[in-house]
């Protein structure tokens, strides 16, 4: 069955090609069958492979397809690697991907670009699968850039809207900044190890001393790539803007799968990171900073999708924190649970937006509980999961991260808990403002309120179930679990295991869990007090805000900062380069030479006075000079 792994990406690719080429000629039904079916098929194979892998002793299988690039020593095969890590990601991608495809059938049913949407989604799945399946860094890079492209296409799906297009472009360009780092990292890997195949690289890397500068450089460069793709500081601003795309896109790409590529990559390269403490620290610090920074912004946003977006950024920060402290399993665990509940939340939000006829401002919502019962329940479950309420999935994954952070550095743990509190607060703020209280929208919107169709609610329900039970694959030992996930991923991370010392006692772990739950409860209560009891509403657009509030509400003016520090100067610089340096100086020099010759010619021709006397005179002078040369 593992031999069939090639089919996994191939199926969505075929789906893309069929839908993409025939496009509008197919009926929507057929399109949805092909679109969803291809992903479902991939999921089925992935599931089969997963079980096969758990059953067999050989945990890492490479399947060579063809030789892709060769140049001297550099030889890059197009081959796939099946191991626990990739098979887990395969499941997440195809599974969640399928659900979101299904959801999209309903969500996009009225859109004229229905077929195009499915084509893009399938293409995305294809690239995402390449990303995780590749057996070397370059294949990963192919997927990496490919998903960036799909992200670009999908964010700008409604291409008539300039703002959406700008958001798409921004996403692509910011990703590219990271990609450059990634690419250079890959090249440095080649230069250092003479290969970029995981197997060869990791095998050699084990012999490197910890803190080797080459490794540090490699890991930092790779991390730049991760920062771009996974929206970490300072390259995160594209992700909130990416919410311009249709909601299923936000759920699939900008929450569940693509943005976690960075985590996958670092987890994949765990041995390299483990051997470079500086990079680890950097990852941890960037992770926690992002987590907090995004969380604070999330506190004051009013757009339902924006809040979720910042939440995603924040959760991604957690995952990097986990990676940074060496909790690779924790990070992957969180990727998985996050995929469930964040996809759920986005799809729920999509359902809300669908019901609200496109309205996204939570100030205009409220009391939707009655109208959208299924959405409400599932959304609540998702909220609890992300907040880390036991025994929902988020609790276990977050707990693992925090425990590891505590073990590593108390400050990191403290900040992590602080972030968790904020998460709980803004998520419940969102929940309360949306579903509780009274409806604040227009009459028109009120009239149209309706629960979403089956194709949308079924995925919601499935995801809700997964959000609830998803955490059970990683119940920590302290709670009597076997931590199935850790066992499963062990072959991947075992080389790095010397860093993962489980010195933490069960008591401490209980205490940490307790604190986390308490903090969560407190934040929940505070949110409840503010938004349900006191029925406080977020400030209206024209209202004056307190400085700190304003700072957060305006997202720290980071976009404006980038605009003024990078974009505008770049344009100005380029303009100057063009108008002054290129046209005046460089070309001026060239044209100047021509003009100089013409000018000289204009002068010189007057020497030809036409006067015989003058000619003779010059001749004599010439003769005198020539004869003088003899005398000298």
């Amino acid at each position, binding site marked *: 069955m593992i031999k069939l792994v090639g089919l996994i990406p191939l199926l969505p690719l075929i789906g893309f090609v069929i839908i993409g080429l025939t496009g509008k000629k197919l009926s929507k039904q057929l399109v949805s069958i092909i679109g969803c079916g291809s992903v479902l098929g991939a999921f089925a194979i992935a599931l089969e492979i997963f079980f096969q892998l758990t059953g067999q002793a050989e945990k890492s299988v490479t399947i060579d397809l063809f030789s892709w690039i060769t140049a001297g020593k550099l030889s890059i095969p197009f081959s796939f690697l099946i191991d626990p890590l990739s098979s887990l990601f395969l499941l997440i991608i195809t599974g969640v991907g399928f659900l979101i495809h299904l959801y999209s059938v309903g969500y996009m049913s009225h859109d004229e670009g229905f077929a195009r949407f499915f084509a893009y989604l399938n293409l995305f799945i294809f690239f995402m699968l390449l990303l995780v399946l590749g057996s070397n860094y370059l294949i990963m890079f192919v997927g990496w850039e490919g998903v960036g492209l799909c992200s670009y296409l999908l964010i700008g799906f409604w291409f008539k809207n300039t703002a959406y297009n700008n958001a798409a472009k921004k996403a692509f360009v910011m990703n590219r900044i990271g990609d450059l780092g990634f690419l250079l990292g890959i090249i440095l890997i080649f230069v250092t190890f003479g290969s970029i195949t995981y197997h060869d690289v990791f095998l050699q890397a084990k012999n490197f001393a910890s803190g080797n500068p080459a490794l540090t450089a490699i890991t930092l460069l790779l991390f730049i790539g991760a920062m771009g793709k996974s929206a970490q500081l300072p390259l995160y601003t594209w992700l909130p803007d990416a919410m311009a795309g249709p909601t299923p896109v936000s759920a699939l790409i900008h929450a569940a799968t693509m943005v976690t590529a960075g985590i996958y990559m670092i987890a994949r390269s765990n041995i390299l990171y483990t051997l470079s403490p500086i990079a680890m620290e950097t990852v941890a610090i960037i992770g926690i900073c992002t987590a907090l920074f995004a969380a604070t912004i999330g506190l004051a946003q009013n757009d339902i999708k924006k809040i979720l977006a910042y939440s995603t950024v924040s959760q991604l920060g957690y995952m990097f924190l986990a990676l940074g402290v060496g909790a690779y399993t924790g990070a992957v665990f969180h990727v998985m649970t996050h995929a469930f509940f964040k996809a759920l939340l986005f799809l729920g939000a999509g359902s809300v937006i669908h019901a609200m006829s496109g309205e996204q401002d939570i100030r205009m919502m409220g009391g939707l509980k009655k109208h959208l019962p299924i959405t409400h329940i599932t959304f609540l479950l998702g909220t609890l999961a992300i907040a880390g309420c036991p025994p929902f999935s988020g609790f276990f994954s977050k707990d693992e991260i925090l425990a590891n952070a505590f073990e590593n550095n108390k400050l990191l743990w403290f900040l992590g808990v602080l972030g968790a509190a904020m998460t709980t607060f803004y998520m419940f703020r969102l929940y309360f403002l949306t579903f509780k209280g009274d409806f604040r929208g227009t009459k028109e919107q009120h009239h149209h309120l309706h629960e979403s169709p089956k194709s949308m609610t079924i995925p919601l329900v499935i995801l809700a179930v997964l959000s609830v039970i998803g955490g059970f694959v990683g119940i920590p030992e302290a709670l009597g679990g076997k931590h199935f996930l850790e066992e499963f991923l062990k072959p991947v991370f075992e080389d790095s295991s010397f860093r993962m010392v489980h010195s933490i006692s069960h008591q401490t772990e209980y205490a940490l869990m307790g604190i986390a739950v308490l903090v969560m409860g407190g934040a929940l209560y505070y949110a409840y007090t503010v938004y349900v009891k006191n029925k406080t509403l977020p400030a209206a657009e024209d209202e004056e805000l307190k400085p700190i509030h304003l700072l957060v509400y305006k997202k720290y003016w980071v976009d404006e900062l980038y605009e003024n520090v990078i974009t505008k100067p770049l344009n100005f610089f380029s303009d100057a380069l063009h108008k002054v340096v290129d046209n005046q100086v460089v070309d001026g020099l060239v044209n100047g030479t*021509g003009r100089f*010759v*013409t000018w*000289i*010619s*204009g002068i*010189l*021709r007057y*020497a*030809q006075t*036409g006067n*015989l006397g*003058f*000619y*003779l005179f*010059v*001749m004599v*002078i*010439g*003769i005198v000079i*020539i*004869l003088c*040369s*003899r005398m000298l």
Partner: protein
Amino acid sequence: MKALLLLSSLGVISLLAEIFSFKKLLYPLVLLGLTATFVLNIGDWNTNMSYFKMIQFDNYAVAFTSVIIVVAFLWFLMAEGFFKDETNQTDHYSLVLFALVGAVLLVSYTNMAMLFLGIEILSIPMYILAGSNKNDVLSNEAAFKYLIMGAFATGFLLFGITLIYGATGSFNLEEIKNAVSVAGSAPSIFYIGVLLMLIGLSFKVSAAPFHFWAPDVYQGAPTVITAFMATIVKTAAMAAFLRLFDDTFLRVAGTWTNVLWIMTAMTLLTGNITAVFQTSTKRMLAYSSVAHAGYMLLALLAANSYSSSAILYYTLAYSIGSIATFCIISIIADAKGSDGIHSFNGLGKTNPLLAGVMTIALLSLAGIPPTAGFFAKYYIFTSAFMAGNVGLVLIAILASLIGVYYYFRIIIAMYFKEKTDESIQVDLNHKLLLIVIAFAIIALGLFPDCVIRLL
């Protein structure tokens, strides 16, 4: 020698044509005569005959004579109209033929006396022919300027010959050469003599700063005569120059190389730069001919095994290119009354043949492959490079870029500017001539070996 005799006889026969009234036959007769001369001349190949120790038909002389006769033949084809003037028909024939005699003397002399007479026999008909458009003030002026300056320069040449005679006691090139080597260091008057001869010959090949006559004379003279001066006269003078300096005076190269180095650079630059601003194509080509003298001097200065074949090839390539351009200029000027660049506007559309041949000829003059002009320049550069004159080669490269600049002004005018008139009627023989030249330019460029192998 046979060539010499035949050409002289042809000149005399031309004069007789007036008396015995066979003027109609004269044109074919001359062409026939030239062909015969060419054949006879080829017969002298490898014979290395010397006559009175005055002239020697070594291969060098034969090769240059051949070039001169070939070019003269083409020139006669081009200049047919020039000989239609009833009054002076026979005079023109004989003067041109006498000038050819002078040219042949210049490529074969082994004695200063022959050099001097050759120059004069070549020059005096030229003075006259430059003024042959008797009612044209410009033509008069050209003749007059040419004469005065030519005579003036002759004075210096003679002074030089005299000093060399004083130092060596001989006019014979071989003896002069040996006298210097025997004496080791010749008396200082010898060196002054060399320099004065350098000046005199530089004047003839129009090297700066003795080039001033050239643009004015070329512009003022009738176009066909300009063509003659630019091709045959220049070839002969260059050959004479080369014969004297790269052989006889080679042992005292130290005396003249520095001077010639600077003169070459000046020639290249002034010729090319000044041409840029010209609007009269004839005058532009006059300056360009100054510039071409500069390239040839480059090879002369190199004074190595490549020099003579380089100059041979260059003169041939340059001459046939010039014949074509002057022919077209005269056709255009006759039709439009002006030889300004604007007369060429739109020629590419009205007369594609003229424009095409003109383009090929100009490309050749500019030195663009695969034309003969390219290989000529290449060969010269190689020769100069070999001699270590890298700086001069760089100047020459710059100069030839400037050259491209003005040659292309005509090309651009022909193809880019809108047409102004209807197409021009061109004689069949002119058409044939031009086509032949165009092919010759390309063929020479592709197979230069057949010429450069000779020397």
